[in-house]
């Protein structure tokens, strides 16, 4: 990589950006962009990259091709994937063996190889180009889109796409108050979940008395199922850092912290490298570019605590203490880190700032709805065909995201619910598929926007099990201070667990609701206050399912082990013995070509047989035995 030198002044940086941009725009070589974030690597992208390097060399194409290794492209289902520019041919699900063919046929001979193209799960048609793929069409990838164009470990790459032009604009053309007004006018709201107006937070921090102020980037993306921030930190760390530098200018902060989860080693690495490069080029430190502006950035790692995503707990963690939230007021904007005014924003919030400064508040506020401006990145996961990170304008409906972008539910199963907002959010049923995504409408429906996790569930997902899952998560992650949260989540979990095991009794649901409300009302911090949401929303929309567990001892989705047993459907069984081989306790009987039988004295209900069967001949049915003893007569 090129040796980096210090930028002497504003003009110096401006010139370099111009040079980099020009080089990029005049690029005539073919560019192969390979997606290689954490997931990509887990799927083998590094081996594909090695194979590409070898093949390019072998075909003598080294001087005609640029290989750009980027962070996450966002279309996770398709990984390992690559895009060939300038045509934007999109190849997906690649193995190292595919590479030679691609280099020979497409790069060298200009022919598209059909079998590597994306195929729509419903229409079965192939798409050649990135912009033909349904997954991308309704998205508006103003933040994530740039992941494709940069090597996250290269500052020069970032400059080549116009990086740091917003910072220069903020530095030379705006007064700090004007930056804040721009952010206020844009309508940007915190992307971490609560949706507090960012400009207002900045203003409050700036206005707090005192010379020493801090800004913090909250990269403690703890919501299970959400990884948008990981993707931005891994794939475009400079964008986030630039946002923070603009924030520091506006608020008057000299020091900033980036708090990244311990579970994101690659993100930590890329952010560390990025900060390092900024220091080496003089874009961080004292008297940046020869101006009065000095700014230091430190990286702080999390250590495995979901509650540290809460502002005051995060501050405690940076201070080296236990991550216990504290009472607010005083708010961090008044007394935060080391009791100084502190502004904490989420990764995605910071990443939007350079765009707002560069393109203007009107541009940003023209996207989205009246109350929720701009775009939001969601991690669309679970029972969905096109798993990945989707960035959509606020106001788009759930239906559009799940069906048009997500390609619907796999294996032809029926949609049952979509969970948003992580453990602080709720499950929304099919009747709400036309709900537009914005802060207020999601809250009114019993969920929240949250940080962006969007988990799709199908008919084989049990909502009692989902409620139990979230309560188990919360009782473990609660800091434990407030009895309402600590005991509330524990007792709610116990009740739901009993229900899932067929031990539910009349009165349980009423007790659950009463306890949920008390937990919500009495707890001090956001974790406890929203801990009741998963329970309350599943009760609101799926009460019959809970009632079936309690009164009929039946799990309609076939998930709760105590209420089901696995049964072989004789008409569908082909006698292939796959389930027999998979069974860890030799509980399946039957010879080849003969209908198999599951023996219940040995069956431990592990589910391996259902997984192994390719003919859908094994089903989870209601466990008949329980009915006789425990059926409650109403």
């Amino acid at each position: 990589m090129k040796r980096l030198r210090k930028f002497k002044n504003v003009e110096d940086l401006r010139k370099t950006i111009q040079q980099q941009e020009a080089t990029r725009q005049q690029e005539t070589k073919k560019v192969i962009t390979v997606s290689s974030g954490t997931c990509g690597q887990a799927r083998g992208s590094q081996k594909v990259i090695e194979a590409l390097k070898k093949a390019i060399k072998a075909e003598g194409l080294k001087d005609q091709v640029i290989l750009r290794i980027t962070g996450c492209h966002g279309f996770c289902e398709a990984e390992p994937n690559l895009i060939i520019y300038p045509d934007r041919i999109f190849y997906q699900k690649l193995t190292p063996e595919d590479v030679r063919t691609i280099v020979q046929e497409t790069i060298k001979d200009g022919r598209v190889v059909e079998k590597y193209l994306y195929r729509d799960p419903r229409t079965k048609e192939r798409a050649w180009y990135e912009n033909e793929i349904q997954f991308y069409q309704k998205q508006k990838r103003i933040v994530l889109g740039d992941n494709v164009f940069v090597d996250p470990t290269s500052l020069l790459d970032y400059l080549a796409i116009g990086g740091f032009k917003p910072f220069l604009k903020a530095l030379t053309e705006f007064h700090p108050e004007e930056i804040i007004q721009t952010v206020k006018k844009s309508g940007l709201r915190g992307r971490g979940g609560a949706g507090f107006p960012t400009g207002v937070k900045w203003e409050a921090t700036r206005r707090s008395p005192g010379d020493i102020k801090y800004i913090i980037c909250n990269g403690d993306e703890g919501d299970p199922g959400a990884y948008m921030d990981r993707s931005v930190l891994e794939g475009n760390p400079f964008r986030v850092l630039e946002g923070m530098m603009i924030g520091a200018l506006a608020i008057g902060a000299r020091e900033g912290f980036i708090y990244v989860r311990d579970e994101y080693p690659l993100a930590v690495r890329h952010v560390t490298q990025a900060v390092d490069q900024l220091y080496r080029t003089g874009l961080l430190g004292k008297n940046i570019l020869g101006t009065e502006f000095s700014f230091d950035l430190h990286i702080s790692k999390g250590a495995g605590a979901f509650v540290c995503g809460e502002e005051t707990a995060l501050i405690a963690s940076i201070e080296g203490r236990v991550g216990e939230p504290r009472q607010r007021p005083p708010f961090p904007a008044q007394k935060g880190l080391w009791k100084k005014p502190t502004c904490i924003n989420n990764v995605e919030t910071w990443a939007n700032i350079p765009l707002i400064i560069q393109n203007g508040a009107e541009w940003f506020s023209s996207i989205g709805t009246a109350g929720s401006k701009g775009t939001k990145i969601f991690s669309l996961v679970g029972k969905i065909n096109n798993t990945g990170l989707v960035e959509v304008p606020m106001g788009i409906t759930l239906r559009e995201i799940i069906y048009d972008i997500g390609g619907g539910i796999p294996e032809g199963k029926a949609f049952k619910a979509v969970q948003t907002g992580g453990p602080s959010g709720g499950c929304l049923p099919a009747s709400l598929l036309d709900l537009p995504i914005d802060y207020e409408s999601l809250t009114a429906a019993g969920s929240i926007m949250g940080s962006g996790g969007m988990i799709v569930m199908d008919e084989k997902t049990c909502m009692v099990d989902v409620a139990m899952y979230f309560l188990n998560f919360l009782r473990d992650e609660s800091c434990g201070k407030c009895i309402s949260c600590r005991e509330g989540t524990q007792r709610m979990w116990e009740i739901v667990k009993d229900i899932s095991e067929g031990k539910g009794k009349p009165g349980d649901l009423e007790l659950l609701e009463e306890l949920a409300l008390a937990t919500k009302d009495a707890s001090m911090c956001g974790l406890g206050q929203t801990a009741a949401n998963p329970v309350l929303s599943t009760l609101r929309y799926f009460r019959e399912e809970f009632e079936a567990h309690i009164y009929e001892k039946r799990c309609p989705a076939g998930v709760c082990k105590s209420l089901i047993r696995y049964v072989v459907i004789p008409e569908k069984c082909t006698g292939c013995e796959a389930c027999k081989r998979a069974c860890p306790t030799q509980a399946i009987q039957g010879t080849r070509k003969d209908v198999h039988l599951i023996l219940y004295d040995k069956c431990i209900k592990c589910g391996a047989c259902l997984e192994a069967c390719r003919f859908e001949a094994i089903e989870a049915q209601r466990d008949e035995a329980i009915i006789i003893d425990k059926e409650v007569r109403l």
Partner: protein
Amino acid sequence: MSTSQTVNLEKIQEIVERYGYDKSKLISILQDIQAVFHYLPAQALKQVAGYLKIPLIDIISVATFYRAFSLKPRGEHVATVCMGTACHVRGAPRILEEFERQLNLKKGETSEDGKWSLETVACLGCCAIGPVVVVDGDYHAHTTIRKVSNILHKYQK
């Protein structure tokens, strides 16, 4: 991995020095100590309390609060099953059960012979490739109940 390893005190001091004896860097210090010893030995914690002039109980509070830390020695190999929502919906609990069965361990435990530790994590952020299992830093995508023995086999040399 011996359980009663004598703690190299010099190493502890080196780490604390690296962070300038700064109390606020406690978490980073503990992370570095764990990176060296694969867990937080009691002796190390006592040393840190002395160097940083923090009451030992406060160090213990921090060390037990954060899941990244282990006060018990971990196995040579660590298998971590992701229990995030997306992985859960795709069957992670059954996969954890399979690991428990095959390793004869409950989650959070280490085997008697010190070879294996089985842990869970709330979410790794790799939801698209779930269910995810990480063994010794290697990410395994789309795990199924039947893949578990193959995965374990790779490390059981």
